[in-house]
Protein backbone atom coordinates (compact mmCIF):
# COMPACT_ATOMS: atom_id res chain seq x y z
CA UNK A 1 0.00 0.00 0.00
CA UNK A 2 1.15 3.57 -0.66
CA UNK A 3 -0.15 6.76 0.90
CA UNK A 4 -1.38 9.64 -1.26
CA UNK A 5 -2.68 13.09 -0.36
CA UNK A 6 -4.40 15.82 -2.33
CA UNK A 7 -3.57 19.52 -2.06
CA UNK A 8 -6.61 21.51 -3.14
CA UNK A 9 -9.25 18.81 -2.88
CA UNK A 10 -12.41 20.91 -2.89
CA UNK A 11 -12.53 21.45 -6.65
CA UNK A 12 -14.17 19.12 -9.16
CA UNK A 13 -10.86 17.58 -10.33
CA UNK A 14 -9.60 17.15 -6.76
CA UNK A 15 -12.92 15.52 -5.86
CA UNK A 16 -12.54 13.04 -8.73
CA UNK A 17 -9.00 12.17 -7.63
CA UNK A 18 -10.41 11.52 -4.12
CA UNK A 19 -13.18 9.30 -5.53
CA UNK A 20 -10.66 7.26 -7.54
CA UNK A 21 -8.10 6.93 -4.72
CA UNK A 22 -10.76 5.89 -2.15
CA UNK A 23 -11.58 2.91 -4.42
CA UNK A 24 -7.97 2.12 -5.37
CA UNK A 25 -6.83 -1.20 -3.86
CA UNK A 26 -3.16 -0.16 -3.45
CA UNK A 27 -3.61 3.39 -2.17
CA UNK A 28 -4.60 4.88 1.16
CA UNK A 29 -5.95 8.43 0.83
CA UNK A 30 -4.19 10.12 3.75
CA UNK A 31 -5.16 13.80 3.64
CA UNK A 32 -7.10 16.22 1.48
CA UNK A 33 -6.55 19.94 1.93
CA UNK A 34 -8.77 22.91 1.21
CA UNK A 35 -8.25 26.39 2.58
CA UNK A 36 -11.89 27.37 2.08
CA UNK A 37 -13.40 24.18 3.60
CA UNK A 38 -11.08 23.34 6.50
CA UNK A 39 -12.78 21.05 9.03
CA UNK A 40 -15.67 20.11 6.78
CA UNK A 41 -16.21 16.50 5.76
CA UNK A 42 -15.20 15.65 2.19
CA UNK A 43 -18.80 14.74 1.37
CA UNK A 44 -19.99 18.25 2.27
CA UNK A 45 -18.28 19.35 -0.94
CA UNK A 46 -18.36 16.00 -2.80
CA UNK A 47 -21.79 14.53 -1.95
CA UNK A 48 -21.11 11.29 -3.87
CA UNK A 49 -18.48 10.45 -1.24
CA UNK A 50 -21.00 10.46 1.66
CA UNK A 51 -20.57 7.22 3.59
CA UNK A 52 -17.31 6.51 1.74
CA UNK A 53 -14.91 8.42 3.93
CA UNK A 54 -14.85 10.15 7.28
CA UNK A 55 -11.97 12.39 6.09
CA UNK A 56 -12.22 16.10 6.78
CA UNK A 57 -10.42 18.82 4.85
CA UNK A 58 -7.16 19.94 6.48
CA UNK A 59 -4.99 22.97 5.71
CA UNK A 60 -2.01 22.59 3.33
CA UNK A 61 0.56 23.18 6.04
CA UNK A 62 -0.83 20.17 7.97
CA UNK A 63 0.16 17.85 5.08
CA UNK A 64 2.30 14.99 6.39
CA UNK A 65 4.90 13.40 4.12
CA UNK A 66 3.34 10.77 1.83
CA UNK A 67 4.30 8.64 -1.18
CA UNK A 68 2.44 10.54 -3.89
CA UNK A 69 1.16 14.12 -3.69
CA UNK A 70 -1.61 15.24 -6.05
CA UNK A 71 -1.78 19.01 -6.45
CA UNK A 72 -5.08 20.42 -7.71
CA UNK A 73 -4.74 24.12 -6.92
CA UNK A 74 -6.11 27.01 -8.97
CA UNK A 75 -3.95 28.10 -11.88
CA UNK A 76 -0.66 29.74 -10.86
CA UNK A 77 -0.58 28.46 -7.27
CA UNK A 78 1.57 25.35 -7.72
CA UNK A 79 4.42 27.23 -9.33
CA UNK A 80 4.51 29.63 -6.35
CA UNK A 81 4.78 26.78 -3.80
CA UNK A 82 6.52 23.98 -5.70
CA UNK A 83 9.57 23.82 -3.44
CA UNK A 84 7.50 23.38 -0.27
CA UNK A 85 5.06 21.02 -2.01
CA UNK A 86 7.69 18.72 -3.46
CA UNK A 87 9.36 18.38 -0.05
CA UNK A 88 6.27 16.45 1.13
CA UNK A 89 6.49 13.51 -1.26
CA UNK A 90 9.03 11.83 -3.53
CA UNK A 91 6.45 11.82 -6.32
CA UNK A 92 4.19 14.69 -7.31
CA UNK A 93 1.41 15.04 -9.87
CA UNK A 94 0.22 18.58 -10.58
CA UNK A 95 -3.17 18.75 -12.30
CA UNK A 96 -2.90 22.47 -13.09
CA UNK A 97 -1.41 24.06 -16.25
CA UNK A 98 1.61 25.36 -14.35
CA UNK A 99 4.11 22.69 -15.47
CA UNK A 100 2.68 21.44 -18.75
CA UNK A 101 4.68 23.62 -21.14
CA UNK A 102 8.44 23.04 -21.49
CA UNK A 103 9.06 26.33 -23.38
CA UNK A 104 9.00 29.34 -21.02
CA UNK A 105 8.32 31.74 -23.89
CA UNK A 106 5.31 29.65 -24.94
CA UNK A 107 4.13 29.68 -21.32
CA UNK A 108 4.29 33.47 -21.15
CA UNK A 109 2.55 33.74 -24.53
CA UNK A 110 -0.42 31.55 -23.55
CA UNK A 111 -0.74 32.47 -19.88
CA UNK A 112 0.18 36.14 -20.07
CA UNK A 113 2.80 36.20 -17.32
CA UNK A 114 6.37 34.94 -16.82
CA UNK A 115 6.68 31.51 -15.14
CA UNK A 116 7.52 31.79 -11.40
CA UNK A 117 9.47 28.55 -11.11
CA UNK A 118 11.36 28.32 -14.41
CA UNK A 119 13.97 25.89 -13.02
CA UNK A 120 11.22 23.34 -12.28
CA UNK A 121 9.66 23.33 -15.75
CA UNK A 122 12.04 20.72 -17.14
CA UNK A 123 11.69 18.45 -14.11
CA UNK A 124 8.10 17.56 -15.14
CA UNK A 125 6.95 14.96 -17.67
CA UNK A 126 3.76 15.84 -19.57
CA UNK A 127 1.13 13.50 -18.10
CA UNK A 128 -0.47 11.93 -21.19
CA UNK A 129 0.41 8.18 -21.06
CA UNK A 130 -0.46 7.63 -24.73
CA UNK A 131 2.44 9.96 -25.55
CA UNK A 132 4.91 9.57 -22.65
CA UNK A 133 4.34 6.19 -20.97
CA UNK A 134 8.03 5.22 -20.71
CA UNK A 135 9.16 8.57 -19.29
CA UNK A 136 6.20 8.61 -16.86
CA UNK A 137 7.30 5.26 -15.39
CA UNK A 138 10.61 6.85 -14.37
CA UNK A 139 9.29 10.32 -13.57
CA UNK A 140 9.31 11.99 -10.13
CA UNK A 141 7.12 14.92 -11.25
CA UNK A 142 4.29 14.66 -13.74
CA UNK A 143 2.08 17.50 -15.00
CA UNK A 144 -1.64 17.01 -15.52
CA UNK A 145 -3.15 17.39 -18.97
CA UNK A 146 -5.46 20.04 -20.36
CA UNK A 147 -8.88 18.55 -21.14
CA UNK A 148 -9.39 20.26 -24.51
CA UNK A 149 -5.74 19.68 -25.42
CA UNK A 150 -6.09 15.97 -24.61
CA UNK A 151 -9.14 15.53 -26.83
CA UNK A 152 -7.29 17.37 -29.61
CA UNK A 153 -4.02 15.48 -29.13
CA UNK A 154 -5.70 12.08 -29.16
CA UNK A 155 -7.81 13.01 -32.21
CA UNK A 156 -4.79 14.08 -34.26
CA UNK A 157 -2.05 11.71 -32.98
CA UNK A 158 -2.67 8.90 -35.53
CA UNK A 159 -2.53 11.34 -38.43
CA UNK A 160 0.68 12.93 -37.10
CA UNK A 161 2.37 9.58 -36.43
CA UNK A 162 1.45 8.22 -39.89
CA UNK A 163 2.58 11.54 -41.44
CA UNK A 164 -0.70 11.89 -43.37
CA UNK A 165 -1.36 15.58 -42.74
CA UNK A 166 -0.91 18.15 -45.54
CA UNK A 167 1.36 20.53 -43.62
CA UNK A 168 0.43 23.45 -45.92
CA UNK A 169 -3.18 23.45 -44.70
CA UNK A 170 -4.48 24.71 -41.33
CA UNK A 171 -6.05 22.34 -38.81
CA UNK A 172 -9.24 23.67 -37.23
CA UNK A 173 -10.43 21.95 -34.05
CA UNK A 174 -14.00 22.81 -33.08
CA UNK A 175 -14.48 21.58 -29.52
CA UNK A 176 -17.83 21.16 -27.73
CA UNK A 177 -17.51 21.28 -23.92
CA UNK A 178 -19.57 21.04 -20.75
CA UNK A 179 -20.02 23.36 -17.80
CA UNK A 180 -17.79 21.44 -15.36
CA UNK A 181 -14.73 22.73 -17.27
CA UNK A 182 -15.27 26.05 -15.54
CA UNK A 183 -14.77 24.53 -12.09
CA UNK A 184 -17.11 24.99 -9.13
CA UNK A 185 -16.96 28.75 -8.64
CA UNK A 186 -20.29 30.27 -9.70
CA UNK A 187 -20.71 33.31 -11.98
CA UNK A 188 -23.53 34.97 -13.91
CA UNK A 189 -22.33 33.06 -16.98
CA UNK A 190 -22.80 29.75 -15.13
CA UNK A 191 -26.07 30.86 -13.47
CA UNK A 192 -28.61 28.18 -14.48
CA UNK A 193 -31.15 30.45 -16.19
CA UNK A 194 -28.29 31.84 -18.31
CA UNK A 195 -26.28 28.65 -18.86
CA UNK A 196 -29.07 26.08 -19.36
CA UNK A 197 -29.55 25.17 -23.01
CA UNK A 198 -26.76 27.55 -24.07
CA UNK A 199 -24.81 27.01 -27.30
CA UNK A 200 -22.18 29.54 -26.29
CA UNK A 201 -19.13 30.42 -28.29
CA UNK A 202 -16.71 30.46 -25.42
CA UNK A 203 -13.27 30.90 -26.89
CA UNK A 204 -13.40 31.47 -30.61
CA UNK A 205 -9.64 31.96 -31.01
CA UNK A 206 -6.50 31.86 -28.89
CA UNK A 207 -7.45 29.09 -26.50
CA UNK A 208 -4.63 28.41 -24.02
CA UNK A 209 -4.55 24.66 -24.59
CA UNK A 210 -3.21 25.31 -28.11
CA UNK A 211 0.26 25.55 -26.52
CA UNK A 212 0.04 21.97 -25.30
CA UNK A 213 -1.10 20.69 -28.70
CA UNK A 214 1.75 22.47 -30.47
CA UNK A 215 4.22 21.07 -27.93
CA UNK A 216 2.97 17.49 -27.91
CA UNK A 217 2.22 17.02 -31.63
CA UNK A 218 4.86 19.36 -33.03
CA UNK A 219 2.24 21.15 -35.12
CA UNK A 220 2.30 24.89 -35.77
CA UNK A 221 -0.93 25.40 -37.72
CA UNK A 222 -3.52 24.04 -35.27
CA UNK A 223 -6.36 26.36 -34.19
CA UNK A 224 -8.86 25.61 -31.40
CA UNK A 225 -12.34 27.05 -30.94
CA UNK A 226 -14.57 26.16 -27.99
CA UNK A 227 -18.36 26.06 -27.81
CA UNK A 228 -20.07 25.35 -24.48
CA UNK A 229 -23.23 23.25 -24.92
CA UNK A 230 -25.87 21.59 -22.73
CA UNK A 231 -23.55 19.17 -20.92
CA UNK A 232 -21.88 19.00 -17.50
CA UNK A 233 -19.08 16.50 -18.13
CA UNK A 234 -17.72 15.86 -21.58
CA UNK A 235 -15.61 17.07 -24.48
CA UNK A 236 -16.04 16.33 -28.17
CA UNK A 237 -13.17 17.54 -30.32
CA UNK A 238 -14.00 17.69 -34.04
CA UNK A 239 -10.66 18.12 -35.80
CA UNK A 240 -11.01 19.40 -39.39
CA UNK A 241 -7.90 18.70 -41.44
CA UNK A 242 -6.60 18.03 -44.95
CA UNK A 243 -4.57 14.94 -45.76
CA UNK A 244 -1.90 14.29 -48.35
CA UNK A 245 -3.30 13.57 -51.83
CA UNK A 246 -4.28 9.94 -52.40
CA UNK A 247 -4.84 9.09 -48.73
CA UNK A 248 -7.56 6.42 -48.43
CA UNK A 249 -9.90 5.32 -45.66
CA UNK A 250 -7.84 2.13 -45.33
CA UNK A 251 -4.75 4.24 -44.67
CA UNK A 252 -6.67 5.87 -41.81
CA UNK A 253 -7.78 2.54 -40.32
CA UNK A 254 -4.16 1.40 -40.40
CA UNK A 255 -2.94 4.65 -38.79
CA UNK A 256 -5.55 4.65 -36.00
CA UNK A 257 -5.14 0.95 -35.29
CA UNK A 258 -1.36 1.06 -35.11
CA UNK A 259 -1.50 4.08 -32.75
CA UNK A 260 -4.20 2.78 -30.45
CA UNK A 261 -4.47 -1.04 -30.65
CA UNK A 262 -2.52 -1.59 -27.40
CA UNK A 263 -3.85 1.44 -25.51
CA UNK A 264 -6.01 0.33 -22.54
CA UNK A 265 -8.08 3.52 -22.48
CA UNK A 266 -8.50 4.47 -26.15
CA UNK A 267 -11.25 2.85 -28.23
CA UNK A 268 -11.72 3.37 -31.96
CA UNK A 269 -15.41 4.16 -32.55
CA UNK A 270 -16.35 4.26 -36.24
CA UNK A 271 -19.35 2.05 -36.75
CA UNK A 272 -21.88 1.44 -39.50
CA UNK A 273 -24.75 0.47 -37.16
CA UNK A 274 -26.42 1.56 -33.94
CA UNK A 275 -26.97 5.08 -32.72
CA UNK A 276 -23.48 5.48 -31.21
CA UNK A 277 -21.49 5.29 -34.44
CA UNK A 278 -18.99 7.96 -33.56
CA UNK A 279 -17.46 9.00 -30.24
CA UNK A 280 -20.13 10.24 -27.79
CA UNK A 281 -18.93 12.02 -24.61
CA UNK A 282 -22.04 11.48 -22.51
CA UNK A 283 -21.57 7.70 -22.20
CA UNK A 284 -17.98 8.29 -21.04
CA UNK A 285 -18.94 10.23 -17.89
CA UNK A 286 -16.91 8.83 -15.01
CA UNK A 287 -14.84 6.53 -17.21
CA UNK A 288 -11.19 7.05 -18.22
CA UNK A 289 -11.91 6.23 -21.88
CA UNK A 290 -11.03 8.36 -24.87
CA UNK A 291 -13.15 7.31 -27.86
CA UNK A 292 -11.61 8.22 -31.22
CA UNK A 293 -13.24 8.12 -34.66
CA UNK A 294 -12.76 9.53 -38.17
CA UNK A 295 -14.18 10.03 -41.64
CA UNK A 296 -12.48 11.00 -44.89
CA UNK A 297 -13.69 12.52 -48.17
CA UNK A 298 -11.19 10.83 -50.44
CA UNK A 299 -12.07 13.14 -53.37
CA UNK A 300 -10.89 16.28 -51.59
CA UNK A 301 -8.52 14.79 -49.02
CA UNK A 302 -10.58 16.43 -46.28
CA UNK A 303 -10.74 14.43 -43.05
CA UNK A 304 -12.56 14.82 -39.78
CA UNK A 305 -11.03 13.21 -36.70
CA UNK A 306 -13.11 12.93 -33.54
CA UNK A 307 -12.25 12.39 -29.90
CA UNK A 308 -14.63 12.26 -26.95
CA UNK A 309 -13.51 12.20 -23.30
CA UNK A 310 -14.77 13.11 -19.83
CA UNK A 311 -12.92 16.34 -19.12
CA UNK A 312 -12.73 15.47 -15.39
CA UNK A 313 -11.43 11.95 -16.07
CA UNK A 314 -9.23 11.36 -19.14
CA UNK A 315 -8.91 15.14 -19.28
CA UNK A 316 -7.78 15.49 -15.63
CA UNK A 317 -8.15 13.13 -12.66
CA UNK A 318 -8.27 9.85 -14.61
CA UNK A 319 -5.01 10.57 -16.44
CA UNK A 320 -3.51 11.74 -13.12
CA UNK A 321 -4.34 8.41 -11.44
CA UNK A 322 -3.10 6.59 -14.57
CA UNK A 323 0.15 8.56 -14.09
CA UNK A 324 0.35 7.46 -10.44
CA UNK A 325 -0.15 3.84 -11.48
CA UNK A 326 2.74 4.17 -13.94
CA UNK A 327 5.01 5.96 -11.45
CA UNK A 328 4.38 3.35 -8.75
CA UNK A 329 4.61 0.31 -10.99
CA UNK A 330 0.95 -0.67 -10.60
CA UNK A 331 -1.09 -2.05 -13.52
CA UNK A 332 -2.05 1.10 -15.40
CA UNK A 333 -5.79 0.23 -15.35
CA UNK A 334 -6.13 -0.31 -11.60
CA UNK A 335 -8.85 1.88 -10.08
CA UNK A 336 -9.93 3.07 -13.53
CA UNK A 337 -12.16 0.14 -14.56
CA UNK A 338 -15.54 1.95 -14.47
CA UNK A 339 -16.85 1.68 -18.07
CA UNK A 340 -19.35 4.58 -18.02
CA UNK A 341 -23.15 4.39 -18.06
CA UNK A 342 -25.79 3.87 -20.70
CA UNK A 343 -28.31 5.22 -20.86
CA UNK A 344 -27.35 8.44 -19.05
Amino acid at each position, binding site marked *: MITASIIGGSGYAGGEVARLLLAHPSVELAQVTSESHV*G*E*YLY*NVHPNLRGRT*KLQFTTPDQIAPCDVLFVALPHGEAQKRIDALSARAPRLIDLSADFRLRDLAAYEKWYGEPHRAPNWVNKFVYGLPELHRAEMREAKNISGVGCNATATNLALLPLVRANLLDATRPIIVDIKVGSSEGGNSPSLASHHPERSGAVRTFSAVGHRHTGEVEQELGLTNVHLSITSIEMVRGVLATAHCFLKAGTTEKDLWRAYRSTYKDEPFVRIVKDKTGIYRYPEPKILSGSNYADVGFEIDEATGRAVSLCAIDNLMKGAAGSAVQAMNLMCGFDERVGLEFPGLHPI
Partner: protein
Amino acid sequence: MQANCPECEAEITLDKPMRGEIIVCPDCGAELEVTSENPLALDLAPQEEEDWGE
Protein backbone atom coordinates in the same frame (compact mmCIF):
# COMPACT_ATOMS: atom_id res chain seq x y z
CA MET B 1 -14.84 11.20 24.70
CA GLN B 2 -18.42 10.64 23.50
CA ALA B 3 -21.62 12.70 23.46
CA ASN B 4 -24.85 12.90 21.50
CA CYS B 5 -25.67 15.63 19.01
CA PRO B 6 -28.40 17.82 20.58
CA GLU B 7 -30.11 18.11 17.20
CA CYS B 8 -30.25 14.49 15.97
CA GLU B 9 -28.79 12.40 18.80
CA ALA B 10 -25.97 11.06 16.62
CA GLU B 11 -23.13 9.57 18.66
CA ILE B 12 -20.12 11.86 18.33
CA THR B 13 -16.67 10.84 19.53
CA LEU B 14 -13.87 13.41 19.86
CA ASP B 15 -10.41 12.33 20.96
CA LYS B 16 -9.11 15.79 22.07
CA PRO B 17 -12.15 18.09 22.56
CA MET B 18 -11.36 21.72 23.39
CA ARG B 19 -13.87 23.99 25.13
CA GLY B 20 -15.35 26.50 22.68
CA GLU B 21 -14.31 24.41 19.66
CA ILE B 22 -16.91 24.30 16.88
CA ILE B 23 -17.49 20.92 15.24
CA VAL B 24 -19.97 19.71 12.62
CA CYS B 25 -22.29 16.80 13.38
CA PRO B 26 -21.47 14.04 10.85
CA ASP B 27 -25.12 13.04 10.52
CA CYS B 28 -27.15 16.23 10.39
CA GLY B 29 -24.53 18.89 9.65
CA ALA B 30 -25.51 21.01 12.67
CA GLU B 31 -22.70 23.19 14.01
CA LEU B 32 -22.00 22.25 17.64
CA GLU B 33 -19.94 23.98 20.30
CA VAL B 34 -17.94 21.99 22.89
CA THR B 35 -19.26 23.40 26.18
CA SER B 36 -17.48 20.87 28.42
CA GLU B 37 -14.51 18.63 27.74
CA ASN B 38 -14.82 15.96 30.43
CA PRO B 39 -17.53 14.78 30.42
CA LEU B 40 -17.97 15.89 26.82
CA ALA B 41 -20.96 18.21 26.32
CA LEU B 42 -22.12 19.69 23.01
CA ASP B 43 -24.55 22.56 22.44
CA LEU B 44 -26.02 23.90 19.21
CA ALA B 45 -23.76 26.71 18.00
CA PRO B 46 -25.64 29.74 16.62
CA GLN B 47 -25.73 29.09 12.86
CA GLU B 48 -26.93 31.80 10.50
CA GLU B 49 -29.05 30.26 7.76
CA GLU B 50 -27.23 30.22 4.39
CA ASP B 51 -29.32 31.45 1.47
CA TRP B 52 -30.82 28.32 0.05
CA GLY B 53 -33.49 28.04 -2.54
CA GLU B 54 -34.32 28.97 -6.07
